[in-house]
């Protein structure tokens, strides 16, 4: 314990942290510009009439056309300020809050790499990343520090390591390893690529990518930590992420990882990087020397506690799935916030049947009248969202003057190339189910006899048309 403490508080160069700040800020600026240029602010946060919220975060609502664009503008300026090291602490807090607020608006936009960005920007709040190579130092030279405690750099390595290792552990799944799913479904889509195209249809390529990907995720943090393998490992990082960028529509994520993993390199390397950057601007060297930054004793223990809680959560959240009975991929209970990246090809269709006890009538909801295609697609394969939509519909029909309708869902989901199967118990009135983290007993079991399923399907669909 003592050794760990003295390791974490030992001085190290601030250079890796400064480079990390600049790169992360720059990547965020680019991401936000790209996001706006695609028109996604409008299509994801202005146009939808209904948003799927996170449990306990129902109060996070979009801010309208002007409000959302203003929010993104503030977020972009904050990212720019982080990059430049200008009013850094404020900028880091503002960026974390605005980015996280946007991500909390709608669950159907959840991406692991957005979660990653939220976490990294949270961690950045607590480190003195602006005390070198920043406009803040230029303004107030007294802020400058050449050295920081080791933890200020290593928390990012630990966070990255957790991301990779959990992503790797998640791949140790029969579908991924034994069936090469879902890559076997996704790779053939790239058969038109020059040179490598024909290889994409070969199952052996899918197996190679599956096993290679798992091995990469599980080992890369360690090879990056070890000085002797570091350069080779970083080349692997570039190759791996560029490869995924070419093959899959995953946006900025590969570049964010390529940028962030640079932090594993030595202080001397980062110092050379800073010198190179500085020579462009002909600024005097400021980093190499200077005092050591340390938090006050009180702030230090508060920070230690905060980071201990943070990393404990980071360790436990991805494992919470073990508390639920069903197969994780099927029920998705404990799936999010766990670095389960590109693990499933899942698609579903959910038809909601409404019964009005007052009139005895039964009808079906046109989901597309309430949801965007993207929302509809995500909703149909995630039970908590199916439930949320049913509750939204209950409220909707109440405003139409129909009190206490019964809403059931007839839904089918296909997972990793298997034929679609019934998903939600079509006999359960979802308006009577309270949203909670408790296991969802109304999800139908994954392993049902195919023939039995056909029978249920016929029964439920014929029941669907029994009008008065």
């Amino acid at each position: 314990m003592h050794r760990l403490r003295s390791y974490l508080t030992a001085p190290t160069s601030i250079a890796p942290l400064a480079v990390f700040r600049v790169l992360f800020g720059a990547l965020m600026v680019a991401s936000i510009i790209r996001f706006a240029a695609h028109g996604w602010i409008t299509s994801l946060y202005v146009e939808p009439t209904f948003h799927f919220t996170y449990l306990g975060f129902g109060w996070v609502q979009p801010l309208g056309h002007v409000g959302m664009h203003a929010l993104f503008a503030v977020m972009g300026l904050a990212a720019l300020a982080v990059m430049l090291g200008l009013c850094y602490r404020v900028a880091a807090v503002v960026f974390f809050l605005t980015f996280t607020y946007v991500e909390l608006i709608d669950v159907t936009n959840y991406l692991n790499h957005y979660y990653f960005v939220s976490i990294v920007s949270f961690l950045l709040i607590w480190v003195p990343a602006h005390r070198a190579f920043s406009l803040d130092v230029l303004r107030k030279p007294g802020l400058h520090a050449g050295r920081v405690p080791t933890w200020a750099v290593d928390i990012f390595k630990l966070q990255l390591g957790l991301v990779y290792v959990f992503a790797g552990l998640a791949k140790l799944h029969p579908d991924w390893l034994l069936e090469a799913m879902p890559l076997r479904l996704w790779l053939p889509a790239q058969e038109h690529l020059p040179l490598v195209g024909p290889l994409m249809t070969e199952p052996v390529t899918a197996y190679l990518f599956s096993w290679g990907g798992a091995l990469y995720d599980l080992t890369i943090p360690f090879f990056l930590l070890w000085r002797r393998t570091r350069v080779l490992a970083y080349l692997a990082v570039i190759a791996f992420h560029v490869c995924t960028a070419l093959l899959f529509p995953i946006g900025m994520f590969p570049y964010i990882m390529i940028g962030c993993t640079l932090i594993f390199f030595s202080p001397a390397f980062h110092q050379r990087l800073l010198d190179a950057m500085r020579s462009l601007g002909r600024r005097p060297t400021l980093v190499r020397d200077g005092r050591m930054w340390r938090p006050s004793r009180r702030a230090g223990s508060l920070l230690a506690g905060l980071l201990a809680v943070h990393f404990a959560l980071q360790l436990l959240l991805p494992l919470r799935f073990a508390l639920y009975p069903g197969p994780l991929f099927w029920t998705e209970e404990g799936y999010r916030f766990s670095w389960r990246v590109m693990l499933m090809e899942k698609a579903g269709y959910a038809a909601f049947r409404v019964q009005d006890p007052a009139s005895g009538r039964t009808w079906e909801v046109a989901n597309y009248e309430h949801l965007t295609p993207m929302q509809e697609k995500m909703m149909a394969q995630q039970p908590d969202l199916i439930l949320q939509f049913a509750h939204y519909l209950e409220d909707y029909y109440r405003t139409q003057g129909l009190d206490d309708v019964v809403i059931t869902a007839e839904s089918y989901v296909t997972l990793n190339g298997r034929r679609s199967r019934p998903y939600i118990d079509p006999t359960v009135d979802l308006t009577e189910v309270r949203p909670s983290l408790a296991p969802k007993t109304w999800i139908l079991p994954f392993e049902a006899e195919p023939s039995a399923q056909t029978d249920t399907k016929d029964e439920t669909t014929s029941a669907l048309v029994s009008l008065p």
Partner: protein
Amino acid sequence: MDARPVLSRTRQRRVLAGTTFMLTSCDSGGANDTPDEPPPPEEEGFQRPDLLANVGGNLIVPAYGLLQTTVDGLASTVDAFAADPSEESLRAAREALKASRLAWQFTNLFQFGPAESVVLRSALNTYPTNVDRVEANVATGTYTLGSIADRPAGGFPALDYLLHGTDEEETMMLFTADANAAARLAYVQDNAAFIKSNVDAVVTQWQAEGGNYTGTFLSEDNAGIDVGSSLGMLINAMVLHYERFLRDGKIGIPAGVRSAGIPRPGTVEVPYGGYSLELAQANMEALERLYLGVGFNGVDGLGLDDNLRALDADELADDIVATLADIRGQLDALSDPLEEQIEQNNDAVLEVFTTMQELVVLIKTDMTSILGVSITFQDTDGD
């Protein structure tokens, strides 16, 4: 080299039987196969570009060609009717309208690219038509066909109302003896011309000498399966049309599934001409042809089924074929006018809706999953 189209025998057998609506059924392949010739391997070298070439060249472009021919005919017969309104010329105009509306069923699945940029479906076929607005437009003579406000007062459904009306004698009277007769005739002509100009614009866009969208559709850049790719757009457009405009628009909404269980027979596609069911059947046939890759030349080329089979999803491919056949059978058991069918025996219509629902699951969920095509219409990131 043998220039005869290489077709698998299994596919030959699946060529649609019995549905021969206006498409020249050309018996290719099957009959002149020599028995001792080894059957070509089923999945040999399935290539997505070949699928796109078949769909583009043998389905989409000819379908637009047919639509263009029929709406040309519609415009000229309507002009003839306006020049000399008679029972005979009215009948000719009605027939031309029906031919156009049937041809439309073979193009409305393709609302992407040129058709999307002129919002062809909304312009041509927004129904039910707003009778009051049609009458107001006729009376005032001020309207902008294609504008959002006049969409429900124009296109095919407006012509259905104007040319058929509710009463044979009254219809003829409105075109001849009524005070607004000339304005009414002009409105009919304007609509036919409007339909024609929209269709012409889209056809030109597809032509090599026009916008060459065919080139874009078949280009290597668009050969993938991402959201902007040709297959991505094709399948997204197909699924959207099927779900909203075929299953719901033609069957579900009139049968009441979207109106709290209360049937709305007045919302059928052709409430005055009385051939709504026929249009639904033609639209299903178009979907089936697209799925199987059966071109206007009658040749069963590469379709989505072949793509599924090339990915070893034969069972799914067969199930979709079977469900399509089920729907066809159930539709055939109904009778036009659909609104009377709904009033007399809606259960049979709801049965079709249910089977159509099964097909949604198969094509929107299972098929897209196997093909790797994302149903979103939005180009967002995944992870």
